[in-house]
């Protein structure tokens, strides 16, 4: 094909090695005696946005006297290869019209790099990548895609080497595999790992590249309640059998959490409450009401107080998790410094209700306790701090007598009462009330805001003004719209 150029557009996010990738491709073209013109657009995007690279190829062998005139703009309907490093960027290629069914090979990784808008949501703001992949699959001539980041990590290589493998394997550029490999070798950086990643990706692109995209319909694994490890545990699990099968997975996790949080009795208490809801559940949507009540009840009952946080921070498995997360070597020493800032409220929540309330209301006590608040940086891996935290974790055996516990359980009780009341005459509303349990989360001011919103909702329902399920659903989404509570306040007032 010497009557036109081969055109390729690539989008790379900052730090993904788009420049390295482009240089490799230029090098390969040079090896194969092809002219390759590239240009790039960084703009302000040099900081966090995407850089767009545009390349055109033409064989030198076809050049007689005049050099070919190549374009500096990628244009709709004129692209042979579009490369994106993650799902949303692949979809952006389609959105911009750079992917044409008759012509374009789309190469993109299946992993996600979340945008700030997705990350900043109060709940789950992430988009569904399958929706985008399905569209990309329909608009591309071929859609070569797999989790290229995972493949890169598997080989401890950079993602650009995986992308290069996919490009080589796609066969759109008439360059042999050896040229690509020679280019990686010549670059001279982490040659072995990059070659291994290149090769693995090359194979995947070869074998899996030509088919149209079909969303994988992975069958949900059937949940099997694990064996109990103790007699008391077995007794709890036996009680699970009284619940519909569709509820058992969540209730099992709820029981597990409650036992870990407090004791067996607490888990029984949890099941008692859920049982009462089940009795009112008409079974719609596979007992969704029971299931979701169980989910959020377990989470609320296991609210994160000081003993709970201390329990997590001192647990044996935690240091392994830390080691894993920061990618430390197996025997590497490291220090872990926690950033705590307990307020007087959190301290008082550990006291018996009367005393706690008294201290909270006494300005001199508050002043005194304020001496101990403020930001703390504690090194958990020192013996002193560990002992202190372990002591705080041990306070959980007195939890039932603490102000914090009473405070949370008063709210839980109110929630369940309203929910059960609704279950009888307005099951839709009951379900929305159960789902509202999702609002309750966070620490300090966030916790105060989210529980206040929950209470405001409960109050409106208690007032019996015929709150509808849709209304409640709208309030809930407004509660997640901003963290000042403005949207929620307006919605509630409307």
């Amino acid at each position, binding site marked *: 094909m010497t009557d036109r150029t081969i055109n390729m557009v690539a989008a790379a996010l900052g730090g993904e090695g788009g420049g390295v990738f482009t240089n490799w491709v230029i090098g390969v073209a040079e090896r194969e005696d092809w002219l390759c013109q590239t240009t790039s657009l960084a703009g*302000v995007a040099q900081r966090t946005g995407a850089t767009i690279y545009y390349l055109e190829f033409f064989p030198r062998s076809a050049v007689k006297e005049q050099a070919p005139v190549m374009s*500096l703009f990628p244009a709709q309907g004129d692209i042979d290869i579009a490369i994106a490093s993650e799902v949303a960027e692949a979809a952006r290629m389609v959105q911009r019209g750079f992917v044409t069914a008759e012509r374009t090979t789309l190469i993109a990784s299946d992993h996600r790099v979340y945008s700030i808008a997705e990350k900043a949501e109060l709940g789950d703001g992430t988009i569904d990548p399958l929706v985008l992949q399905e569209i990309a699959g329909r608009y591309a001539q071929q859609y070569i895609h797999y989790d290229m980041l995972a493949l890169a990590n598997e080989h401890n290589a950079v993602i650009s080497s995986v992308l290069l493998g996919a490009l080589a394997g796609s066969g759109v550029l008439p360059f042999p595999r050896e040229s690509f490999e020679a280019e990686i070798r010549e670059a001279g950086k982490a040659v072995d790992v990059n070659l291994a990643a290149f090769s693995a990706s090359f194979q995947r692109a070869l074998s899996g590249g030509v088919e149209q995209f079909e969303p994988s319909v992975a069958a949900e694994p059937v949940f099997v309640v694990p064996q109990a490890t103790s007699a008391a545990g077995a007794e709890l699990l036996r009680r699970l059998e009284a619940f519909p099968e569709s509820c058992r997975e969540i209730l*099992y996790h709820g029981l597990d959490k409650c036992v870990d949080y407090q004791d067996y009795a607490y888990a029984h208490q949890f099941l008692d409450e859920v049982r009462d809801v089940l009795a009112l559940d008409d079974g719609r949507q596979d007992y969704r009401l029971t299931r979701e009540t169980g989910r959020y009840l377990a989470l609320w009952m296991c609210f994160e107080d000081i003993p709970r946080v201390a329990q*997590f*921070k001192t647990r044996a498995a935690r240091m392994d998790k830390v080691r894993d997360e920061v990618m430390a070597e197996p025997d590497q020493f490291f220090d872990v410094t926690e950033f705590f*800032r307990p307020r007087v409220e959190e301290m008082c929540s550990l006291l018996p209700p009367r005393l706690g309330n008294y201290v909270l209301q006494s300005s001199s006590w508050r002043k005194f306790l304020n001496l101990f608040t403020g930001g703390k940086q504690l090194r958990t891996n020192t*013996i002193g701090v560990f002992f202190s935290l372990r002591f705080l974790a041990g306070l959980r055996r007195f939890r039932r007598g603490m102000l914090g516990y009473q405070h949370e359980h008063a709210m839980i009780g109110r929630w369940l009462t309203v929910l059960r009341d609704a279950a009888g005459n307005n099951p839709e509303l009951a379900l929305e009330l159960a789902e509202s349990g999702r609002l309750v*989360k966070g620490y300090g001011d966030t916790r105060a805001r989210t529980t206040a919103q929950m209470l405001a909702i409960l109050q409106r329902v208690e007032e019996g003004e015929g709150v509808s399920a849709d209304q409640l659903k709208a309030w809930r989404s407004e509660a997640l719209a901003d963290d000042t509570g403005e949207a929620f306040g307006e919605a509630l007032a409307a």
Partner: protein
Amino acid sequence: MAERSFAKEVLKLRSGDGEVFQGEGILAITKALLQSGVSYVGGYQGSPISHLMDVLNDAQEILGELGVHFEASGSEATAAAMLSASVNYPLRGAVTWKSTVGTNVASDALSNLASSGVTGGAMVIVGEDYGEGSSIMQERTYAFAMKAQMWLLDPRPNLTSIVDNVEKGFQLSEASNTPIFYMMRIRGCHVTGEFIARDNKAPEFSNRNPVSPNREAEKIILPPNVYAQEQEKIAQRLPAAIDFIKKEKLNEFFPGKHEQLGIIVQGGVYNTVIRALQRQGLCDVFGNSDIPIYVMNVAYPLIPDELVEFCVGKQQVLVLEEGQPEYVEQGIHTVLRRADVQTRVYGKDIMPMAGEYTGQVTLLGLTRFVTSAGLPGISLRLSEEEVRALQSTLADDDHNTLLENVPPRPSGLCTGCPERPLFSALKQVQTELGPFHISSDIGCHSFATLAPFNLGNTIMGYGLSLASSSSIRHALPHKSISIMGDGGFWHNGLTSGVTSAVFNKHDGLLIIVDNGYSAATGGQDIPSLVEPNQIIATTIDTDGPVRDDEQPIDEACRGAGVKWIRTVSTYSIESMKETLRDALTTQEPGLKVIIAEGECMLNRQRRVKPLLNKSIKDGKRTRRARFMVDSETCTGDHACIRISGCPSLTIKPNPDPLRQDPVSYVDNSCVGCGVCGSNAHAAILCPSFSRVDLVYNPNGWDRFIGGIRQSVIGWLQERDERKRVARAL
């Protein structure tokens, strides 16, 4: 030392006669300057010509060998004034900047230069920051060229043409005693390609061969000279330029078999037109077009004879002129009317008035042009409808789904950026004392006007934030707040802002973000660059260069009469908040200046990473900090993300089977700047953040104490774990 090093590439600048030179447009221009025998070069960085400054900076050795003088100018005005060397002497010189912003800054000197006229070739290489990828308001340099009578070259974007036009440009400048704009578009700056090099030429005059001072009184811009100079522009310089352009064939005529038609195009968009013709089957891959094309590599002035010659006998021509207003098109109409040529001229009537001429826009315009001609011998591959359809191939449903699901990626501050904690602090103070009206400025800190900070109301120009606050300060409920970068401070802010503010008894607050570099343009050095150790937020020792002629910002402010000056590390959010509160509430009169110090993290990482790796490799005990979030205690509210927006602070699926909201997660790009921890404290977030200090090459004490800790804590943990398992489900 800039973000990107061209140390390797600049060696190519030594290529001699006949060698094939391969590289980027920017590098080709530098080579062309050396081949033209320039005596001096200067400029001010800014996209898309930042790299030209970086190349020149990295090429100092080669420049030195030739005796070429280089200055990293303080501003575009400084750079423009450099061209005065070419007024009296046959010295060739070139300066560069981002346009139109830089041209605006330089306009005083440029106008005077253009009035005086030049003896030696004087060239301004403007990076025309227009269209996709641009970072400024959309205007073009063309208007300035017209009103000051400077010639504007806009060559075809291939390296051979780019290089040839630089050399021809100097000759044109000398032949017509007029300074030249040499325009490079964004994509042209970054285009790669090749050309046949020529030998570099040492300048005739330099420190090796000084000029003998020569006064030409008539060139000084005082009346009555200025009246004579204006007449001279029209009577002598313009005709001389037109003669030269014609004689040297700077503009190009490409023939084509459909002689009834013609396309008139500026050189810079030539390749896009050719691609459109190729796609319509009217041109081969080598640019042999069926429709004749007149390429104006000189976009200003127009050459009437050439235009008439091209248009005579044609039924219709298409003028492709990117940007507005349509100066070229108007000029062509005038030329054709005066010559009474009746050719129909299409232009902005079928092309968009504003915006970039992308491949798609050009293809559509060309299609409409050819279709309107209705010539029987021409068949197009794509009809107008088909071209339009290419723009939106998506079905409505898919279009809407993508619109809803493809998230925007706005620019933001880098991982570990020292400006992030400053804006976190300012945002927290705003909840106490605000809402605030903030005068913002040009620089990385402009991103504070975007989510998640949303701080800032106006941006009036580089270093102009304080100046722009001077008119609103009397009408604000709080002391006025201006934010300026160190780059902007030295560029313009000290004089236009600080000096004027003190003089006018301004009592507002100026926050100067001192990150040590001109960071937004690629990390170039600035006057207040100090030994990195001296930047208080820097914690790792280094053997940085020491300057004996320091130019600290605080002393400059003091010298300008500011009494209230505080220097605060941006990373200590608490003390920043306190200082901000203090500045906004103090009764003390006069301008308040807070210098918010913290080294640009991008540059710092570039500097520190090799040192860190070397230290680890050399077996020295080394600590490296990074942050993490405990996914057990994180409840998925993401307040930490909203308050910081750090790219390394992201989310991942919640490991708790009961929870449905993703948890926050610090990815491996974390540089351990500590802002997460400070925010967790300052904003009372949650107990999920931990700093992990990794120890490399532990010493005996590390092993000893680490061993004891591990055995004591490990023993207890094991015991607790046994108990837990016994009492588990």
